[in-house]
């Protein structure tokens, strides 16, 4: 069954619950609570999982020591003083997340659900919050860009 509103045929795809609204292949959505329940697949699912795992503290879950990242711990720990710090931090942590996601993906996962790379396109900082603009590419040569707000000063 095709997922409504997409241009990709998602028949026979494994779907996940959508936690965030408006993650799509167009525009720059803002991560937040979903307004309505829906199923997602493909690059939207990957983007959601990437952002969720990126914000999950590394080692939080028993049995999965490699699930999660140190991004938030490092930001809140005062490791980011310069632009380069954030770029460097994001690169390293996102790479670990990608490795985890791809290594635990089903063997028959479609190419647009395997992450090729992520980049921090830009970011802005204001009033204790980082807005991270992330571009995620898959092995199917599809891209998605989304905004990930991160509160760091609490």
């Amino acid at each position, binding site marked *: 069954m095709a997922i409504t509103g997409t241009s990709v045929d998602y028949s026979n795809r*494994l779907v*996940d*619950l959508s936690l965030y609204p408006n993650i799509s292949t167009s525009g720059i959505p803002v991560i937040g609570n979903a307004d309505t329940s829906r199923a997602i697949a493909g690059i939207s699912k990957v983007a959601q*999982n990437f952002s*969720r*795992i990126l914000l999950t503290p590394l080692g939080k879950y028993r*049995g999965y020591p490699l699930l999660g990242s140190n991004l938030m711990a490092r930001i809140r720990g005062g490791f980011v003083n310069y632009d380069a710090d954030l770029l460097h931090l994001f690169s390293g942590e996102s790479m670990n997340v990608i490795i985890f996601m791809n290594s*635990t*993906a089903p063997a028959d996962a479609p190419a647009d659900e395997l992450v090729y790379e992520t980049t921090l396109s830009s970011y802005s900082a204001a009033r204790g919050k980082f807005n991270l603009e992330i571009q995620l590419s898959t092995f199917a040569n599809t891209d998605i860009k989304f905004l990930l707000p991160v509160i760091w000063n609490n």
Partner: protein
Amino acid sequence: MDTPITTLSFVPGLNLDDLSFTDLEILQAETLIAESISSRQTSLDVSPSSSIYDLVVRPKAVEYLLNRSQSFAIQATQSLKGVQLNPTLANDTVVDAILSNIGVARKTGTFASGNIRINVSKNITYSITANQVFTSQNGSTFKPTGAFVALSDPGATNLKLYATDVAGTQYFFLVPVIAINAGVSSQIPDGSSITTSLTIPNFISASTFGSFSGASEKESIDQLLLRIPEALSAKNRVSRVSLSSELKTKFPKVIDVSVMGYGDESLIRGSGKILPVKGGGFADVWVRTSLSAESVFLTTSATLDSISAAGVATCSCVIPATTYPGHFFVASVRLSVESQQYGSYAITGQTKSFVPSGHKILNATEGSLSAYQTTTVTFTVEREVGKLFPTAGEQFQVSVELLGIPLIKEIQDYIDDNNSRAAGVDYLVKASVPCLVYTSPITIYIDSSVKESDIQVAIYSYINNTKMGTPLAVDGVVSAIKSIAGVSKVSFPVEINGVVFCPDGSTISLTSYDSLVIPNRSDIQVEQSTVSFYISTDDISINAIVI
């Protein structure tokens, strides 16, 4: 990890957290749950990166593990074997529930009771409220058995205020009290100093009047398990075990039963008068109904038989069979309601006899410790200067302290009941022959967390739970001491002593560094199977060294 999951308290004592399980167990459970979901909803992504994994699989896996763990626990607690294989499950509730299936109930601890003597300086009316708390030096607390008023003319309902001397400079009254907490540590000895929580006017001092008794510890799981064979046996009078089982079921206070019947040397009833040939149809039922020997005080009339030239009066009184059936002996004669003026008392002898009954009893030894024994006690009273003194032949009141165990008559009556008694067997119920035990100082090395009273209670429990037929082993005493956490070592030798108060009125003294073995004196009904060991906590001497 403090999360809503850990604080949900899904099962009492077993929170919804994953700390009880290994990483591998969690991983396997998550895989199982993921496969379960995936098999039902084939289109759902349940890979470890998915949201569903976070939202459903992870918590569901912990729930699954907890439920499985709880199921195993329930499965294990359905049998005593399972409980014994899993000592962590062997809590009182589980064991009690299992044993209730076969009609076995744990004996709960009982409370020590006795009287406290309050010394006051004026002859006025005193009130003791029910919320008064008396505290002994070892920290045991007691409450009055009710609200009391004490005065010199008490009438039928109040306590009597006694004058301690002719001059009337000091008075006292006795308050009946019961321990607030169960356990033998509250069995404090006669004359122990007591403090009060509420002020008593003209108060001088307070102390125990007679040793406190009647307390027992709550039955341990091990002790409870030992009773299972009897609980499962038929409850009738066919065999020793079944009779024991019947009595313990009917009288929960019965701790130990030893039946001496046909072929047993100590059964002297039924022997021929001329030839020592025993006929059948007789059995002595030796019972123990209390961990500790009880002190019972009663006021009775004594007669002054004679007065020596030195002014020492020889007196006597009789303890009838109905007063305290089966009592061991008279422990003391002292001041009583009407005779407090006379002087000091010393027991010089006591003779046992018996009253006729439906049972074949030929002599005092056979009737001793049964519901049909009587005791005549002789004692001297030494005149004290300034105190009144009776004349020859005069009767006066004394307070007599009897040592014994309860229920002898009640058990005899039950066995004799027309509706249930065994045809053709003459059962005579007797209190087991007492061997009163005391220890020489035992040197024990402990850390600062150990309380001496805990050691005393452990020794007390071991000795007083030793069954008839079993020697009292020093090994057992040492093991009881070592069972207390914080005890490092016990110095040897450990000396234990005992005095057997034989049915014929004689005594046998025993001392051993190994085990107290009762000598075979079946001619006076003393042998291992008729004797029980009794010790009170104040007869346990401990030399504790903190290291």
